[in-house]
C-alpha cells in the first residue's frame, strides 16, 4: 500500500478543471518533484492533499487512511506539512513565534518542549538573525525561508514544498537543496513543486509532469524531462 495515494481526484473551479482524474502514488521516503506550466494545477493539487480544498471526486489516502474528508488541521496531525507558494506568515507574531505556534500545535506539545527544536530549525533555514522580528516586516526571501521552517516545525512525515527556490542566488540554492536532501535522508517523504529545474533534479528521485490538471508523464527525472510530451509543453509555454 502506498504512503500517499490519490485515486482519480478531480477538482473544478466553475468551468475550469484544475485537477482532472489525477492518480498518483508516493511511496514512503521518496522525494517526488512536480513540474508543469503556470496554471497547470500544481498548487491546487497540494491544497487537495492538505485539505485546504476538497476534491469534487476521487479519494485520497494517507498511511492507509482515507483522508478525503478530514479537515486540514487534522491532516497536519496525521503528518502532512506544507509550505505556501505565496508566503502566508503569521504577521503579528515573530519568526520564532511562527515556529513555536506551528511546532506546538502541529505536534500537540507544549511550547517549552518544542522551543529548542524550533531554534535548531531556524538555524538550518538561516533565519536566526531575524528570530525576534515580527514576520510581517520580512522581505520575500526570508518569508520563503519561514514557509519552509514552519512546515518543518510541524515535524511532518510528508512535506509539501511549493516553489521555494525562486529568486535564490546559486549559493543559497545549494544550501536549500542540501537542507531538503538531508530532511529527505531522515526519512521524510517530500513532494516538491519547482520551476528551478536544476535544484529540483538535484534532489528528487522521481518527477511528475502536470498539464491542464492531468499527470502527463512521470518517472525518472532525466527521462521525463527528455520526453517529447514535456519538451512540447516547455517549448510551448516558456519561450
Amino acid at each position, binding site marked *: 500500500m502506498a504512503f500517499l495515494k490519490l485515486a482519480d481526484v478531480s477538482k473544478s473551479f466553475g468551468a475550469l478543471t484544475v485537477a482532472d482524474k489525477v492518480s498518483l502514488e508516493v511511496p514512503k521516503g521518496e522525494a517526488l518533484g512536480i513540474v508543469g506550466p503556470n496554471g497547470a494545477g500544481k498548487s491546487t493539487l497540494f491544497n487537495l492533499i492538505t485539505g485546504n480544498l476538497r476534491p469534487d471526486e476521487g479519494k485520497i489516502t494517507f498511511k492507509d487512511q482515507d483522508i478525503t474528508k478530514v479537515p486540514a488541521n487534522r491532516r497536519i496531525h496525521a503528518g502532512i506539512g506544507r509550505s505556501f507558494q505565496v508566503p502566508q506568515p503569521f504577521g503579528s507574531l515573530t519568526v520564532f*513565534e511562527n515556529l513555536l505556534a506551528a511546532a506546538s500545535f502541529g505536534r500537540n506539545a507544549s511550547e517549552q518542549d518544542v522551543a529548542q527544536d524550533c531554534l535548531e530549525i531556524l538555524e538550518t533555514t538561516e533565519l536566526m538573525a531575524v528570530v525576534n522580528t515580527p514576520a510581517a516586516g520580512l522581505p520575500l526571501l526570508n518569508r520563503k525561508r519561514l514557509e519552509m521552517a514552519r512546515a518543518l516545525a*510541524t515535524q511532518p512525515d510528508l512535506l509539501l514544498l511549493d516553489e521555494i527556490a525562486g529568486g535564490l542566488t546559486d549559493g543559497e540554492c545549494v544550501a536549500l537543496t542540501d537542507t531538503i536532501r538531508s530532511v529527505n535522508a531522515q526519512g521524510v517523504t517530500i513532494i516538491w513543486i519547482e520551476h528551478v529545474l536544476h535544484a529540483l533534479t538535484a534532489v528528487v528521485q522521481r518527477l511528475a509532469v502536470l498539464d491542464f490538471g492531468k499527470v502527463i508523464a512521470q518517472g525518472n527525472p532525466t527521462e521525463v524531462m527528455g520526453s517529447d510530451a514535456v519538451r512540447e509543453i516547455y517549448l510551448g509555454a516558456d519561450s
Partner: protein
Amino acid sequence: MTHNARIEIATRSSRVFLVFAFAAIIAAVFLPAFVSRGIIKDMFAILTLLALAQCWNLLAGYGGLVSVGQQAFVGLGAYTLFAVVGLYGFDPLLSILMGGVVALLFAIPFAFFLFRLDGAYFAIGSWVLAEVARLSVAQWKAVGGGTGTSLPRDTVRSMPGTDWVRALFDVSGSAARDIILYWIALILAVALMTAIYVLMRRRIGLGLTAVKDNAEAARSVGINASAIKWMTYLISAFGAGMVGALIFLQTARISPGAAFSVTDWTAFVIFVVVIGGIGTLEGPILGVIVFFVLQNFLADFGSWYLVALGAAGIVVMIFAPQGLWGLLRDRLGLTLFPLRRRVIFTSERTDL
C-alpha cells in the same frame, strides 16, 4: 547542538508593573474608606466599562472577530438577573454569574449563525442578532415588556453584606450597596483581565493570534481555527453577560432600550478600545480613563458630546492607529502585559 538561549516573556517594566498592579488593587479595595459615594459610583462605571472593553478587545483585537453586537449579551445577562431575582427571588450575587451563563448559552446558536459570515457580514450579523434579542425580550411581559421593570425594593435592600458594610464604614444602606457593587465590579474587571492575559500567554493565545493573522495558514500547522474562534466568542459573551447583569443590578431598573443599547455597550466600548489601543490589554485601561475625562469635560455640551467623542476617535485612528497606548509604548519602550516570546541569547555556556 543545543543553543545557549532562553525564552522570555516578562520584561523589566512588566515586573515593576506587577508589583504596582498588586498595590493598586489593594488600594482599590480600601478606596471606599477614603472617598465619597459619588466617586465610588464613578469607579463602578469605569470598572464595568473596562470589563466590557476587555471582552470586546479579546474578541476583536486578539481574535479579529469584529462584532457590533455585544449589547446582546449585556442585555441578556441583565434580563436574566431581573428574571431570576425579580421573579424567583434568587440571590443577586449568584444571579450575576447566571447572567453570564445565560449569555453564553445564547452565544452558542449565535455562533453557529455568525461563523458562516466573514468580516463586515459578521459585524452586521452580530448587530442583527442583538436587535432580534432586544425585540424578543420586549415581548416578555413578566419583565415589563417594552417599557421595562424595576427590581423589587426589598431585594435591592437585602443585598448580602449590606449590614456589615454599613457598620464598617458607618454609611447609609444605599451607600453600602454602592460599595458592595463597586467591589464586585473590581473583582469582575480584575478577574476578566487576569483570565484574558493568562489565556493569551498560553499556547492557545499563540494559536488565537495565528488564526487572526491567517486562518488558512493556521489550519495548515494543525490549529483548529474554528474551535479557537468559538472559544473566544463564548468567553467574551460570558464576560459581557456578567457585566450586564452587574450594571443593571446597580441601576435596579431595566428596559429593552437601555439593556440592549448599541451606543452604551458597543459604540462606547469600541471607542475605548480603539483610542486606547486595540489588541493590547493596556489599551482599554488607558482608553477608559480618556473616555471618562472626555465625558465629564464634554457633559455640558449636550448631544454635541457624542460628535466630539466620535471626532476624537477618528483623529486617534488616523494619527495613531495603534491607539494612545501604541504611542506611549513606542516612545517609552514599556510593556505592562507582555505576550511576546523573545529568544534571548546567553553568551558562552558557563559550566561551573
